[in-house]
Each structure stands twice: as C-alpha cells, then as structure tokens.
C-alpha cells in the first residue's frame, strides 16, 4: 500500500484525496478474504466438531450396549451377540460382530474419515485412519490400590474375561482422546 494522506491533509472530495482510495479498496477486499477464510475455517472446524459429536454418540451406544450385556452376563442371561457372550472369546471378534450386518449396530461407521477404521487400538496421529475411531481399552488393577485401574490399549489377542474393566474412548478432532465411559464386563 502506498504512503497516503494523514488526518490534516487536503479536504476530502478533491482529486488528490478521495473518500475511498484504491488502498482502501484493496484493504476492504483483503478484509473480505480474511472473513471468508475465518468463516471457512470455522465451518471446517464446526464440521469436524460435529463429526466428533457423532462419533461420541456412536460410542455412547456401544457403552450402553456393553453395560446391558454385562448385566445380562452377570444375571446368567443370554447376550444378543454370540461373539461377545462367553469368556475366552476374542474382543476383536466381538467388536466386529457388533457392527456386522446382523449385529446391533450395522450402520455404525467412522464418520470422520472416509477410509477410517471403526475401532482402533489407539489414537495415532501417524495413522490418519484412526481419526474418528472408537477405542476400547482394558484396565489393569493397580498393585497399591486394586479398586483403581491403569488403562492401556487392548492387544489383538485379548480375550473376554470375567469382570474385565473396559474404557471406551473416541479419537476426536486433532487426534484428541475423549473419554466416553467405563464398563465392568
């Protein structure tokens, strides 16, 4: 922008000092660009936030199902998904069965990433497909206080065991981990 008039220069309206100069026009255009940029970034952030919310709602449904299934197991009743019913069955099979066509959540998918995984062991910035995934962690009792737990990723070979302490998380916007709930299965 070129150096221009100051407050005590020629009166406005003369050819030398118009009310709205080219610099003002360029600045106004720049402001519009900035506003559009902020609006766009805000919109993108809002969409990502909405996707995270959707993922949270999905994870809440998983938590609710696990709570009901845990109650059914404790009372000796049947669990609706066979792969999640008995001790010794793999957790990976159970989770896959939950989102299978015949499962209770056939339409549950990763809404944040097109090629994203539905379930993941952890929220990993280096693996973009974990964004929007639901994470199931296993709790290990602390030696000093067995009533409190240290949670960590579940191995592929991890199996269902009586009174397993589980924590359900989601991998949200910016690969931030959001805790949804804990279940004693």
């Amino acid at each position, binding site marked *: 922008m070129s150096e*221009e008039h100051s*407050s005590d220069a020629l009166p406005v309206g003369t050819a030398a000092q118009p009310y709205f100069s080219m610099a003002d026009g360029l600045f106004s255009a720049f402001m519009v660009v900035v506003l559009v940029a902020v609006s766009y970034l805000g919109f993108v952030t809002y969409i990502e936030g909405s996707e995270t919310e959707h993922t949270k709602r999905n994870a809440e449904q998983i938590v609710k199902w696990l709570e009901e299934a845990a109650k059914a197991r404790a009372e000796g009743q049947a669990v609706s998904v066979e792969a999640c019913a008995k001790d010794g069955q793999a957790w990976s099979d159970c989770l896959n069965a939950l989102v299978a066509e015949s499962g209770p959540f056939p339409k549950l998918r990763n809404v944040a990433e097109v090629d994203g995984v539905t379930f993941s062991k952890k929220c990993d910035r280096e693996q973009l497909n974990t964004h929007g995934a639901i994470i199931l962690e296993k709790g290990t009792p602390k030696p000093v206080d067995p009533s409190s737990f240290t949670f960590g990723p579940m191995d592929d070979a991890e199996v269902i065991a009586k009174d397993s302490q589980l924590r359900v998380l989601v991998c949200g916007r910016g690969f931030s981990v959001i805790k949804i709930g804990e279940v004693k299965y």
Partner: protein
Amino acid sequence: MNTHTSTDLSSEQANASVRFRRFIYRWLFDPNQPGNYQKSVETWISLLIVANLVALLAENIDVVYAPNKALFHAFDVFSLVVFTIEYVLRFYAAPEDDEFKHSGRPRWAFVRSPFALIDLAAILPFYLQFVGVTMDLRVLRALRLLRLLKLLRVLVPAVQEFRALNRGKTFRQQMYALFYETETSGQLHQLVDTFVVWWVLISVLAVVLESVESVHYHLNVEFIVLDAVAVAVFSIEYLCRVYSCVENPEYKNAVWGRIRYAKTPLATIDFLAIVPFYLEALLHHLFDLRFLRIFRLMRLLKLTRYTSATGTLLKALQREWPVIAASTFIMLLMVVLTASLGYLFEHEAQPDKFENIPQAIYWAVVTLASVGYGDISPVTPVGRLMTIIMALVGIGIFAVPAAILSTAFNDQLHKEREAMASELRRFMADGFLDEKERAQIFEEAKRLHISEREVENLIEKVQFERQRAEGAQLPLKQMAENPEVAFEHFRSSIGQLRQIIAAGNQEKVAQLFEQAGRATDAEKAIWRQLTAR
C-alpha cells in the same frame, strides 16, 4: 363559597397529568436532561436484549435447556414485562418527545415510528397467543430474534453522531476515529470498545469452562462456534487497527509505521489472541496444537487497552525499577542461601526431598514467601531452627518489593491527579471553564477514576483559590463574548457587596457615603437599594 368549578378541577387534573407525563419523559427518556436515568435505562434495556439473545441460543442446547425450562420461561416472561412497560411508558410520554410533540397526534406518530414498530414486534408474538393466534415454538423463538433490533435505538443515534463528527474525513480517517480514542470518536467508538470487551470476556470464560471435562463434553460444538465468531471479531479489529494506525503521526509511514505499530505490546497481544485459531485449524492434523488453546487466555490482556490502571502501574514500575531490582537481588541471595543451608542440614535426613540445591530452591521460595505448601519441610532440629530464622527474615525481605510497588503506584496516581488539577488551574486562569475544557477535564478524571462529584469539588476549590489569590479579577474578554458569564459575574459581585454590607458597620459606612465628594449619586443609590429592608 366554593370557587372551584368543574372546569378548574379537570384543568388541575389535566395539569397534574401533564406534569406526571413530563416527569416520566424527562427522567427516563429525555437524552438532553442532565443527571436523569435515560442512560441507565438504555444500558439496562440493551443488557436485557443481549441476555435474551444468549437465552435464545442456550435454548437450542438440550443439556442446558432441558433441566432449566422453568427458569428460561420465567426469564422470557420477565423480559416481556420489562419491554412491555418500556413500550407503554414511551407511548404515554410520546407527547413530550421532541420527535413527536409537534405532530397533530403524537402518540400515533410514535406508534408509526420505526423504533416503536420494532419494540412492538419484540413483544407482540407473545401476546398474540392469548388472542388465539397459535404459533410453532420454533417460530416464536425466531421472532424473539427481533428483540435484537431494539439495539438500533442505541446504534442509530451513535452512527448519526459519528457521521456528523467525521463529515469530510476519508474512509481510513473514519476507521481510525472508530477504533482509536479521538476527539471525533463519539459514542460509536464506545460501543465498539464495549462490544470487543464483551467478546474478550466471553471467549476467556469459554477457555476456562472448556477445561472442565463435563462442560466440554456436552458443549464442544458450541465452544467451536463461539471461538470462531470471537476470532472473526478480533481479526477484524486487529486488521482495522493496523490499517488505520498510519493516521497517528507516530506511525505515519505506510509500511514501517504499520510494522512499528504491529510490534507494540498491545498489537502483539491482539495478534497472539487470534493466531492459535488459525494454526490449530490449519495444522491440527500434523501437530498436537491443543496447548495453543491456553494462549487464548492472552485475550484477557486485550482488556489492558481499556483501562489506564496498567499504564499507571507500568510508569510506577519504571520509576522504581532501580529499587525493585536491588530488593530482587537481595531476595535472590536469600533464596540461594536458604536453599543451600536447607540442603546442607536436610539432605542426609531426607535425600529424596532435599536431593540437591536446585530442588531445595523450590522449598526456599515457598518458605520465604510465607506460602508454606507443606509438601517439603525440614525434620532435623538444626534445619528447623534455620527455617524459623529464614522465614522471619523472609517476611520482611519478600514484602519489600510489594510495598515499593504499592507506594509507587499510589504516588503515580497522585501525581497524575495533581497534573490534572494543574491543567484545571491553567484552564481557569481566565476565570471561566468552557465546554471543551470541561469535557477534557472530565475525560481525564474518568481515566484517573475520579468521580464527577470530586471533580466538581475540585473546580469549586480552584475557583475559590483563584478568587482569593487574584482578588477575583474580572475576565472582561469572556464577558464581552458570553452574556452568561457577564450575568454570573454580576450576580456574584452583588453577592460580594451584600457580604461587605453584612460584615461592615452599616451606620458608619452610611455616614461615609453622605460625606460630600466621597461617592457619586449612582453609588449612593446602589448603597440605599442594597441596605433597604
């Protein structure tokens, strides 16, 4: 005999009614009546309108609205009652309003006026339900947005005033007057400042609440929207300030002036207030930039622009810096000495807590500053004895900088107030304080947190000092230009004459007047007039 006729009585009642109506208008709505409640009414109504908008937005958040439905409804009813009372009072007092009083039917003119139509639209949908007009709840909520238009009652006059004050100025000059304090800034600049301040407070509150997991879990999207709007507001403000700063002679150059402005502390704070949003939005896939959210708390520092207290504190700090630096040096010596002694006496007994001197420094500062968390404490007798001595010494040493700063701050404030008083004496050297000088003094008083009452007292004091010191020399030039000044001085002079009469021996003075050649006939006549009972 009863002399009052029915016409007299109804005339009296009508006069009483007109007086009451005039009273209502002058005390609540007249912008030209000094000392009335018009500004307060306007401010509270504006705050209520904004609160309505916040409530409307909150009603769309299930987790907030569902448990508090009754409260929201009660607030809506309260707002309606207030707006209805406002409308009714304005309708009643319309014949006193300069805008409508000359119309043949002032109240009808009021009803047809744009602001009154907006006021009516803000309350009518609620009342229509009582006459059988049913509306969908969402439509009702949308119509409540019309209440925002009531803010035009404050905004439109401010814009008109701004345009009048800045007629003939360029776009950039007007932008400068809008964002910086100038003589032609007017009310609109105050409104812009108030708007920015509110957004600073809202966004800082959002950052604080976001750290509460239960709140953040339910209101994540709302916080995102809030932050985006705040960044848009702050970005516009920042860019406008940088663009128009060249109107200030200090930053005259188009490029280097702007760069110099951008490097100032306030501009840097403005920049840091918006950068986290852009960085996180663009780079969150690559880096974990959540720590940048805490930088949003820096927005709180933007508020230092709107208060002079920080400037006064910085001046005090600058003035007392050598003394503060010396006391800081002594504090550091004490800390190192205490930490070293603590390590020496406690290391063997508590090797985990007094592992080394740097670790002991934490304990030394906590002890000397009289904080005493208790997580690390001495257990040996010598260690405890040393702690007792150092803690007692520390109270004195650590309090010194605080005392110095507090005294310097008070002194600085006192100096600035004295400077204002000197400025007032300079203005009143001609015996008269004109409107411009008065406005300047009150502006400075506001900056120094001096009340209007105190300023009036100061003006009276300076007037009295001046009269005593200079023998009330008459400002002949001002009297020639301003009949009001002449009138006031004439009355003041008559008052002084009466004081002389009351204080002196009237009989003896009267004898002096009767002596030949001592007084003219006119002077004798004035004496007789003033002493006549």
